[in-house]
């Protein structure tokens, strides 16, 4: 029964979103004009824009992201371990303590890291 409700909800959520677009197509008027389909440009003539630009000064954050995403997954797996075996909590606490103080140390040093690169 519950799966039934879920399926119905998925279908209804999709249909409502689709209904918005269909209603928009039905209710709106259409008048073709060259300037309408141009890219938005604050009243100026649109000029070329290189498609892929990346602010390099934030690159260190990307590296930190890769590290911390893995750490977050590790913590999650260790949480499952605690649910299964409650005695393992001591080891997890030590792991968390090391992680916490190392991250605090890292965050104190990170302020200089951005300017360096």
């Amino acid at each position, binding site marked *: 029964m*519950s799966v039934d*409700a879920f399926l119905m909800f998925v279908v*209804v959520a999709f249909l409502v979103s689709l209904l918005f677009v269909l209603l928009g197509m039905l209710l709106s008027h259409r008048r073709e004009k060259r300037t309408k389909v141009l890219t938005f440009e604050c009243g100026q003539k649109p000029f070329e824009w290189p498609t892929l*630009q990346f602010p390099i000064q934030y690159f260190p954050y990307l590296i930190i992201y890769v590290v911390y995403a893995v750490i977050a997954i590790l*913590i999650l797996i260790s949480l499952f371990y*605690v649910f299964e075996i409650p005695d393992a909590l001591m080891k997890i606490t030590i792991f968390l303590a090391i992680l916490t103080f190392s*991250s605090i140390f890292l965050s104190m040093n990170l302020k200089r890291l951005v300017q360096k690169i």
Partner: protein
Amino acid sequence: MSSLIFQELARAAANFLSGLPQPLKDFILFLHSDAFIKAIIFPGLLFILTFVMFTIWFERKLLARVMVRLGPLHVGKYAGLLQLVADAVKLLSKELIVPEKAIKPLYVSMPILCCTLSMLTFAFLPLGPGWVIYPSDISLLLVFVMLAITPITILVAGWASRSKYSFIGMVRFAFQVFSYEVPFFLAIAGVTLAARSFNLEKIVEAQAGLPFIIPALLGFIVFLITAIAEVERVPFDLPTAEQELVSGWQTEYTGAYFALFYLAAYIKLDVIAILTTLLFLGGWHGPLIPNIPESILGHFWLILKSLIVVFLVLLLRGVFPRITLDKLLDLGWRVLIPLSLLNLLIVAILIQIGLL
């Protein structure tokens, strides 16, 4: 006395049903079924749309009060309650323009996908004991998955528009979301460690005595800040900063497509408010109130608490200015992640001592 009346009513209803033709009877029974009520009425569609409409009306009214204006006033009988319906009709009657440089299939499909996915998050949120569309043992992880998938549609939409404003907004959004997802996740991990479950219903049941906001106060602060950043509210609305980037990643969208993105943003805001209530504020637990029957008391407390959270989040827009991107990233990586890890450590130590 009242039970007699109910019996009479039930008999009358049974008589009425037996007199009807079979297809109509099946239809009435279908309307009465558990699946229909859950999917369409209470935790489902109608509740979501009503809640979102109320949120948007409340935001406009509240911001108006903050700025000493009147806000929506004329549409609807009282205080512009139907202003949103008028706005929806106006947006739907606008022309649907697809820019010539845009990648059309992606550009057209992303608003629909974004709205659907953010609405699907509600399927895993219990709004009362047993009142959940899809009961699951890992519902918290499922909610997190939905909250992590929705930004991807926004990234694709910003990229497929092929406009420089959309592109800058999209890059900002990517930085913001990916840097705030990690502390968001770690703050949730603290709650799951305290409740020893990923099931949202069990997490709420574990807070019957003491809401988790007290042992995990740091986690609550981190969670609220990251959640506000996830739904792009002020002071973290860099991706859609009107003053700098026209409208950020949704610059090129008009009419119904824009309405869908608008709707999705407010659905996400409501999801965040309800999730905060469930995780930290004790969910449907609350003191008895004499005039309210017990069957709706839980829902009443849950909705009241989430409305308070919505109020707090909306009030930020009237109070704070926007912060810059480097400060935002600094806050995320240098303050929030150590704080969330510290919160996790505190919770683990509290369990170790035996206080939780």
